[in-house]
Structures are given as structure tokens and as C-alpha cells.
């Protein structure tokens, strides 16, 4: 089995075991990641300005 196929099937299986479908996990992961970046970048810049 090619590594990519192994990695893909293993990740998907782990997610299914956790009860989270892969599509839903990826969407939530992307959205939460984007929200964290959009929050932390201006916040950290602001903190630096006010030091």
C-alpha cells in the first residue's frame, strides 16, 4: 500500500472511530484555524504596539 493511501485511510478510520466524519472534521479544522489566525494576528500586533 502506498504511503499516501495508508495515511489517508488511517486518518479517515481514526476520525470515524472518534465519531466525526472526515468532511466535517476538515471543515471545522479549517474554520477554527482561520478564526484563530484572524483573532490572534491583530491581537498580537495590538499588544506589541501598546507595550
Amino acid at each position: 500500500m502506498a504511503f499516501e493511501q495508508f495515511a489517508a485511510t488511517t486518518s479517515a478510520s481514526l476520525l470515524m472511530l472518534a465519531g466525526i466524519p472526515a468532511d466535517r472534521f476538515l471543515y471545522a479544522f479549517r474554520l477554527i484555524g482561520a478564526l484563530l489566525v484572524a483573532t490572534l494576528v491583530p491581537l498580537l500586533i495590538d499588544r506589541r504596539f501598546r507595550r
Partner: protein
Amino acid sequence: MYIGHVGAALAAKRVRRSIGLLVLLVATYTPDWIDAGLCVAGVYNSRELLSHSIPAVLLFALIGFVAYAVATRDWTGALVIAAVILSHLLLDWITGYKPTWPGGPMIGLQLYDHPLADFLAESIVIFAGALLYGPTLPARRRPWVDISIMLGALLSLQLTIDIAHVLMKSLSKC
């Protein structure tokens, strides 16, 4: 709207300087955080009725108002928090396509399908927010440098998102 929401938070900082920027940033992204939570919980609605409809956002604004007022006794600040939460919906109507109420129509210009127009609309909001935010910073010899750094970072983030949106159009939602 993506990074444009930060523009609303920065503008609100000018209106009420005592409110921390973190609180304003959480307020401005409240419907999106709810969206992410609903997705993880497995109760996501594809029309985003529970996170982006008018009654839902009004409810979040009311909760934000009460929570901030109870925590700080600052009623004006609480009004600003509620307004920032409501601004999410107004800004999303410019760039997205969002529900009104259960059974109601979807409205919005859906600029996400036109990345250049989306970038332009978001940039205008980011620019206005950064300009209003500038005077809230401690006095410096070259205040425009600080504003430029914030503006550059936010516009870079928005550009990255618009490019990613073009490259990954096929990615499904929750």
C-alpha cells in the same frame, strides 16, 4: 466576509477604547464561532440558520450585551459589543449569501464568487477600521508605521484567503 470583520472590531475600539481588542474580536466573529461549534457538535445547518440568520444574530447580540454589561457595568460598552456582533451579519450580506429567518429568503451579494471584488470590499472595511483604530494607540513619532503594519498584516491575510478560495473551490462545507 472574512478579515473585514476585524475592521469592524478595530473601528469599535475607537468608539469605546476601554473595551479590550480580544473581546471585540470574539464579538465580531461570534456567528462564525457558533458555526464551528455546531459543525463539531454534528448539528450544522447547511443554510447557517442557527448561526447567521437575523433572529440568531439578534440573540447573540442580546447575550453579548447582557454578558458584557453584567461583567463590567459599562452599558455603553455593552451596546458597542452588541453592535459589533450585529455588524457581522451586515458585512456578510455584502460578500456572502445568508439566511434571513426560518423559511425566509437568502440574501447577499455573494462576492465570494468574485475574489477580486471580495478583496476590494474587504479591503475597504479593513482600511476604514485601521484608520479609525490608529488614534487609539499610544502617541508615537511615526504613528502611520503602526497603522501600516496592522493594515499590511490584515490585507495579506485577506489576500491569502481569497487565493485559497480560488484554489480550493471544490472543498465541501461541514
